[in-house]
């Protein structure tokens, strides 16, 4: 027992303050991209073809970057630095799918649930995580929120073992055909009213697996309340999104 106490003293208190202005992400971290529509490509929109996931479109020669498809590979910014530039901003969760289309205007961060829902979940949210395809990295970054570094529990948010005990589900992965049924059953098993969160490019848009016949995407009957972009999203992006949804950060 003494050894444990000494170790605890040695390792110290390591839970980060959040939200905090102190948080600094590494220099090479690619956060919220900035899109500069005025960076005159002379009407030519060849940058639309560079994106491996088709996240960039150029209707009327103006760049639009779909944050829900972007895997943050940085290729666009490398080739067209005047049009695309990655900031180190990790706050990029949104409530509506269309809010993820970046056109150069200020990014619309996730808004709080409506009053009734906020009253229910604002101080206690239990989530069932459903991993449905993908690579396991989004799951890893959800798991890390449960470690003492982030200590998700202090915000009243927990991942539960059973959908019956949950207030909602957090979906990761492109939803493979082979996981579609399990996802639908899990969603059905959660008592209403319920919240649905799509975390990561795969869950939001199929990511790099979009269009594979092996993947199905989140069925239309499962309406999404919060989109958390990234490949995978940084744990801080997930945490920030959850707290905004619950109205704990404005």
């Amino acid at each position, binding site marked *: 027992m003494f050894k444990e106490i000494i170790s605890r003293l040695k*390792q110290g208190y390591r839970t980060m303050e959040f939200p905090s202005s102190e948080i600094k992400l590494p220099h090479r971290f*690619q956060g919220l991209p900035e899109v500069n529509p005025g960076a005159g490509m002379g009407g030519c929109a060849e940058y639309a073809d560079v994106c491996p996931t088709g996240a960039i479109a150029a209707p009327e020669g103006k760049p639009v970057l779909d944050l829900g498809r972007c895997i943050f590979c940085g290729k666009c910014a490398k080739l067209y630095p005047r049009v695309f530039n990655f900031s180190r901003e990790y706050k990029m969760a949104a409530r509506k799918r269309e809010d993820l289309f970046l056109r150069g205007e200020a990014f619309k961060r996730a808004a709080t649930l409506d009053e009734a829902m906020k009253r229910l979940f604002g101080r206690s949210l239990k989530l069932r995580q459903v991993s449905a395809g993908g690579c396991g*990295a989004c799951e890893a970054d959800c798991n890390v929120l449960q*470690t003492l570094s982030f200590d998700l529990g202090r915000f009243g948010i927990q*991942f539960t073992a059973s959908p019956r005990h949950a207030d909602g589900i957090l979906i990761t992965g492109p939803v493979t*055909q082979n996981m579609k049924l399990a996802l639908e059953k*899990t969603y059905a098993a959660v008592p209403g009213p319920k919240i649905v969160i799509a975390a990561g490019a795969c869950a939001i848009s199929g990511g*790099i697996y979009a269009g594979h016949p092996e993947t199905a995407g989140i069925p239309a009957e499962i309406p999404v309340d919060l989109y958390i972009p990234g490949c995978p999203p940084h744990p801080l992006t997930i945490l920030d999104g959850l707290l905004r949804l619950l109205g704990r950060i404005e």
Partner: protein
Amino acid sequence: MTELPRLSHLQAAGLDALAPLPPDDFYKAAAGRLKAGGRAVSYFGFPEEGRSAPLENGSAGTRLVMILAFDAERRLEVLSMSAGDSFRALTPDFPQLHLFEREIAEQTGLRCDGHPWLKPVRYPLKAGSPIPPGTADFFRVHGAEVHEVAVGPVHAGVIEPGHFRFQCHGEQVFHLEIALGYQHRGIERRLIGGPGQLTSHYLETLAGDTTIGHASAYCRAVESLSGTPVPARGEFLRALMLELERLANHTGDLGALAGDVAYLPTASFCGRLRGDFLNMSALICGNRFGRGMIIPGGTAFDLDHALIKELRLRLDAAFGDVENAADLLWGSSSVMERFEGTGIVSRETALALGLTGPAARASGVRRDVRRDFPAGAYLNLKAPLPEDAPESGDVRARAYTRWLEIKHSYELINGLLDSLPSGPVFAEPGAMKPESFTVSLEEGWRGEICHTAITDKAGKFRSYKIKDPSFNNWQGLAMALRGAQISDFPLCNKSFNLSYCGHDL
């Protein structure tokens, strides 16, 4: 019997090396070599010239390729045959082939004769006949007091999906069958005709926690097919990233193992420390999993003095804390009581199933690609495990092996940083040779990764076969549960911590 063509690791060979043997000679040669101690590193089929892709157009004309390794002699061999509509299972005599043969049957449509348990592997979509995973018959034990326990695909924790079916007598497990395929997203098929815009991203997300391992294996395959020499500094940085990946995952697993026996100090400390190692990867390339770092020709980022200094500081601090957390674990008798003698995999079983990585080493099978088939910065590596490393094959051995590997990786990284060569980290790769093939092995943190690439006339991928170490090791977990208590399943599972997506592709 004619002499089998020898292969050199990472040396592109012409397709004549895959010249088919008559089937009977193939089976005889394969059986002979496996009996002589060979290990199937990979065994797969690809369509003969002029046939459409596997799965789509059924069976006719499939070339089967078996890559064999003789680890102690550092030798690779290859043998090949052309199958019409069927091939003969060797699994009854060589259990290590069981999943390979099931996979071949599933991917090529060939009939597999004589396989004792010919079930789907990933339940891929087949036009007209989709069968959902976990629906085929399970092996059953009958008896008045025998009961069945079904777990998954959605598990209690935040982890990937899979289905486990236990046959139990009270608490005791007679048999565990593992049904996977839920994560199948069709990666291998998308690699054909590549490399394309998405190729490297598919490889980096094959198993999200093994980004560096699979990306390195892929890049080496491309480099060997295009004859690209990677600058020494690039090689050192790759090795550094691979060892960081090992550190993060082994540390996380030590914590998870502690958590599964409710020993919270180590669980909490290691949970944080795993993140610290991931953050070191982010320091180097911006991404915690190392995405975008390993590219054909070298690495995408370099380290400057300031970064190296920062990295060393963080590494020393994190390692000190892991050492402290691990000491607590080995020093706690209640933890050892749960770890010792739990989930034993004997050396014979490990050999028969062809287990790899720490799971194999903990059962006394000391294979390690870094030593047996080294490339790049690993060419002068000393033995990765000390003489007295545990070989008891239980949870404790698997946990302690991880700890020994953590220490070794820490020393390795320090060594790499001490002797970092100067110069560039990247050399532009040229075009890949047409009609060639290469075998690329890498020791990921779970064990042996094998990529086999075959190019077509235009120098594009005609076939790209991936084997994640989990493909070998899932059956090891099933065997570890034989006769064990079902309540020890989470503990046994964590001691392997296998990849679902790496298996399901």
